[in-house]
């Protein structure tokens, strides 16, 4: 073990990008890596694989990377497990980092599983907190388990690198420092396209007008307490008035009131809006684990003792279906008084998602 400790050094971050657009989790990870690296007294490196990605290097350095390793080749145009895994393992075996972080996105988790298996090392999924054990100089990776019922701190004592995927929107990126400089190491690792078994034919992006739940500032969420289609209509109306997005708990999804893509919680999405309305959501742990990052939570429920009412910033005892129409009216008036809505975008509802038109 002592040998492994000496041989492996530094914190690495996998740079997730799609055709030159950086995934926001990447900069968050560099920020977190910086924290870990400082406490270990080592450097932060960003690993950039792609096709014509030269212009991304400076951004990575300006947000905290000390070194950027780059492999730039058309074969890496789109992410593919089979190419990225090979290139990544090549770099790890050559430069030997002690910690390897990736975003807990579909791409990051796909790559992490393949890399950890190939390198026969330990990988902790979907972490929400990372720190260094100062005695042993190892990574303590904490994550929710069993549907968010419990948190577990996982260690990987005797294998390197110690790998973790980290949930987006949990860590903080550093402030952009335009004067920061760093080292760039360019590597060549060509793979013959003809030898590959997978090919990305095309990428289909969600309609740019659709606001993604995870990016929404205002979320209007309903649970079993919204009861029926009428309740859903009210949620949509409030979303239109406030300029927010409609979501739901598992209870509402199971009653087919809310689309499962709009589910918030452990089996749905983690959100971190400025404002989260919980109408008729009791607040089972599987749901509340997904809204820990919300700034302000408003709970409306008939049961004043339910967990959601206990955790909310403001709670109102009452029937969601009775409170909603009043809220819609009062907000409509208050907001139009404060600012003339004539010049604002009108929001239109399409399949429960508010879009700008």
């Amino acid at each position, binding site marked *: 073990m002592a040998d492994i400790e000496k041989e492996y050094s530094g914190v690495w971050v996998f740079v997730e990008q799609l055709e030159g657009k950086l995934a926001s989790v990447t900069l968050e990870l560099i920020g977190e890596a910086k924290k870990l690296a400082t406490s270990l007294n080592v450097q932060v490196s960003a690993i950039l694989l792609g096709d014509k990605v030269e212009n991304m290097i400076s951004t990575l350095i300006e947000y905290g990377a000390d070194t950027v390793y780059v492999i730039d080749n058309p074969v890496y145009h789109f992410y593919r497990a089979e190419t990225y895994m090979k290139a990544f393992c090549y770099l790890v075996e050559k430069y030997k980092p002690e910690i390897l972080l990736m975003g807990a996105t579909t791409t990051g988790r796909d790559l992490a599983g393949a890399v950890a298996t190939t390198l026969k*090392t330990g990988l902790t999924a979907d972490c929400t907190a990372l720190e260094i054990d100062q005695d042993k100089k190892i990574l303590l990776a904490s994550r929710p388990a069993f549907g968010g*019922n*419990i948190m577990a701190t996982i260690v*990987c004592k005797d294998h390197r690198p110690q790998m973790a995927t980290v949930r987006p929107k949990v860590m903080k990126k550093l402030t952009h420092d335009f004067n920061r400089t760093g080292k760039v190491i360019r590597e060549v690792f060509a793979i013959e396209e003809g030898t590959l078994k997978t090919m990305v*034919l095309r990428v289909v992006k969600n309609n740019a007008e659709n606001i993604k739940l995870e990016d929404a500032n205002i979320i209007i969420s309903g649970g079993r307490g919204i009861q029926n289609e009428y309740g859903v209509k009210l949620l949509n109306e409030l979303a239109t008035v406030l300029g927010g997005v409609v979501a739901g708990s598992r209870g509402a999804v199971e009653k087919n009131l809310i689309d499962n893509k709009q589910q918030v919680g452990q089996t749905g999405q983690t959100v971190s809006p400025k404002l989260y309305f919980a109408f008729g959501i009791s607040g089972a742990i599987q749901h509340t684990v997904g809204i820990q990052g919300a700034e302000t939570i408003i709970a409306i429920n008939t049961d004043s003792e339910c967990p959601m009412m206990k955790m909310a910033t403001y709670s109102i005892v009452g029937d969601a279906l009775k409170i909603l129409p009043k809220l819609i009216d009062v907000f409509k008036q208050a907001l139009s008084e404060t600012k003339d809505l004539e010049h604002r975008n009108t929001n239109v509802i399409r399949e429960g998602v508010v879009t700008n038109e």
Partner: protein
Amino acid sequence: MHILVCVKQVPDTTEIKLDPKTNTLDRSSAPTIINSYDAHAVEEAVKIKSHFGGKVSVITMGPLQAQDVIKKCIEMGADDGYLLSDRAFAGSDTLSTSYILSMGIKKIMEKNSIDLVFCGKQAIDGDTAQVGPGIACRLGIPQLTYVESIESFDLERNVVVLHRKIDDGYEVVQAKLPCLITVEKDINELSFSPLTNMIKAARYQAVSWSINDFTADLSQMGLKGSPTSVRRTFPPALRTGGELLKGSDDEIIETLVNKLKGGILQWQI
């Protein structure tokens, strides 16, 4: 087409209780079910079989009670099932679990080649999504995770075209068979099992393999073969409550709107 589905028996995490004194999970309070994503994987495999013919096999690792999850798959239309059960497997993390499962899959392949391997995208108890890629890696076949739909099979060219979820939408990927696919719930709707399957399932006995059925590397399984270990568990930190607004409905709503309207104008889209 021979399709293999990897399934896991899990505690129903919505029913699980935390013992506030010991900070441990009372697993006995939760009934065991088939991992919900795996159910969609079985459904998809059975659907493909009904189009192209062939056979659906399922494999699971777990205690002897995990027979139940195989029976459930037979009910859903799988043809046969394999249970990998041995005390040597206990305590395995995702790395060693993928080793053990791939060992079982290779043994099945000795007699019966496999065209497709399906898994759920993750298990609802561990939520790691790591075992699928682990198995693909060990079998040396392409991995296609978070698959939302299968567009087409071209059995002459031996390729599949499918939609794989990415952060901002989906990508359309073509892959050579055999490959491993992990599925999202969106891939299909679960259908009801016909009575004949239920009768078959009730009587079905899975093929059960233990460590003695393999020439296996013991150092790669169980606690010994697991590079990760749990240092400690603790209850999740929850937000502390705020203010319960009191008064008539109208008064409460006025208070709330006044507190929020400034912010809302800034945050609006």
